[in-house]
């Protein structure tokens, strides 16, 4: 018997979980290749052509600087959103008055596509880093607030009482009971936030072109360099997969205590 089979469902689930996404990516590339060959138009390069252009984008000094610019803005926007949203969401979840105050405001802001605010923000803050980072921040804030809010609301009353009986103050209860108890839900919000940050990152660069992955993409589009356009789409997609997988690793490490014993294969949501 092989070690893998002996190890039981957990181990087998893991290898299947790693294999299936690879198969899906491969299938997508094959379909693309065949489709592009059949259509044979300039604006849709074959998968192989696009893949061949990926190193040009990644290894050129210009390409690398642009992509790193994008990632830097994304990370700063995301980090700022996390720092602001989690405490706000948690307090909203435990204090009815605070929730009653913020809920209507957030409800108005929620459906507005944040990238649509980009032109206005550019008027105030210019086309540089600040406005793009701010747009990313705005896009990511709401789902994290919402999930933190729901997580904090769901914390068992008696868990909080148990902490209070130990002599914890309100602030200590927030930090040492509500925060860890709501962490699985908070991290679900952060994961949504991560994907939204990536989307907003590209969109903001589409509107305010100066630097970044979106800048390269849309400049190439203007110049009819379709290989580069699709190579950039592949790069952004790959970045999404890698970041999501890395975040999921971190999430599992942080909330292993709450997980039931089943491995969910990589998800890209």
């Amino acid at each position, binding site marked *: 018997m092989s070690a893998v089979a002996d190890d039981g469902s957990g181990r087998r689930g893991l290898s299947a979980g790693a294999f299936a996404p690879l198969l899906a990516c491969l299938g997508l590339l094959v379909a693309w290749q065949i489709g592009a060959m059949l259509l044979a138009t300039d604006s849709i390069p074959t998968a192989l052509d696009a893949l061949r252009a990926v190193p040009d984008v990644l290894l050129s000094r210009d390409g690398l600087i642009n992509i790193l610019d994008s990632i830097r803005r994304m990370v700063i926007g995301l980090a700022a959103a996390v720092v602001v949203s989690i405490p706000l969401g948690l307090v909203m979840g435990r204090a009815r008055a605070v929730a009653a105050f913020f809920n209507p405001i957030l409800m108005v802001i929620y459906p507005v596509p944040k990238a649509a605010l980009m032109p206005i923000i550019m008027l105030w803050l210019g086309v540089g880093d600040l406005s793009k980072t701010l747009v990313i921040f705005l896009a990511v804030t709401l789902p994290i607030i919402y999930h933190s809010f729901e997580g904090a609301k769901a914390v068992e009353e008696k868990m909080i009482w148990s902490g209070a*009986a*130990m*002599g914890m103050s309100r602030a200590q209860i927030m930090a040492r*009971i509500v925060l860890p108890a709501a962490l699985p839900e908070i991290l679900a919000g952060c994961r949504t936030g991560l994907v939204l940050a990536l989307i907003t990152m590209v969109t903001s660069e589409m509107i305010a072109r100066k630097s970044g992955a979106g800048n390269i993409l849309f400049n190439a589009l203007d110049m009819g360099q379709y290989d580069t356009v699709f190579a950039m789409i592949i790069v952004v997609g790959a970045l999404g997969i890698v970041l999501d997988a890395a975040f999921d690793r971190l999430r599992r490490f942080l909330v292993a205590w*709450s997980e039931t014993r089943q491995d969910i294969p990589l998800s890209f949501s």
Partner: protein
Amino acid sequence: MYHGLRKAGTRSKVEEASPGAAALAAPPMIAIEGVSQTFKTAGRKEHLAISNVDLEIADGAFVSILGPSGCGKSTLLYIVGGFVMPTAGSVKVRGRAVTGPGPDRGPVFQEFALFPWKTVLGNVTYGLRQQGVPRFEAEERGHKLLAMVGLKGFEAFYPKELSGGMKQRVAIARTLAYNPSVLLMDEPFGALDAHTRTRLQNDLLEIWERDRKTVLFVTHAVDEAVYLSDKVIVMSRSPGRIKQVIDIDLPRPRRRAELLLDPHYQKYVVDIERLIEDAPEDAVHT
């Protein structure tokens, strides 16, 4: 030895306290004075959950509150814990008015309410670490308590890996860790199967007989209340009020097997069960 059932309020305060002038001057461990609690129901009607409850509990006593569901017995316990504020009346613990939760009153809930992100040892030491006890000292005490509740070797487990009975053992150890003067137990064995429940009752008695903390124990199981308690408070429903206080005059240490055959024990159980059965007729009783 057996005095039978006594009506609430017929006992004098002198009888309540142990003899001697010093003991007379000392306040009871818990004094509940004129406590009432009203809730607003969904239809905005006021529902009187607890009506004018007076109760004194002596230091070191094991007292059970018994009653049908909805009689406000848990609410009364939460009021003593300071988790719920009464609409009227007051609670004093060692002569000091209760204004909120505090480490002098340690709760144990039916739902366990363990911290799932902490190991068994982490749960037990959480309160001590909170109070600034150094890690080594807290863990030493944690190990001792876990051995006492029969969980030696489970220190590194997470709550999700434990059975219900083990979870409640952790919860008891977690509360004992910060050494409260009063244990507030809210149907602690209500969610456990019969066998586990019996074992936890026995172990709780053994622990209690060792350090004689004051225990306020809410339950709806008559046999459990009689087996464990010095005194059983029977409550009636809508509104919840004290119907009768019964002293359980059975010798300690109590051993379950002997007790079940004891006619005094049996009489207590039957009498109290009858008392609870005619609760509806007693709704107007004052």
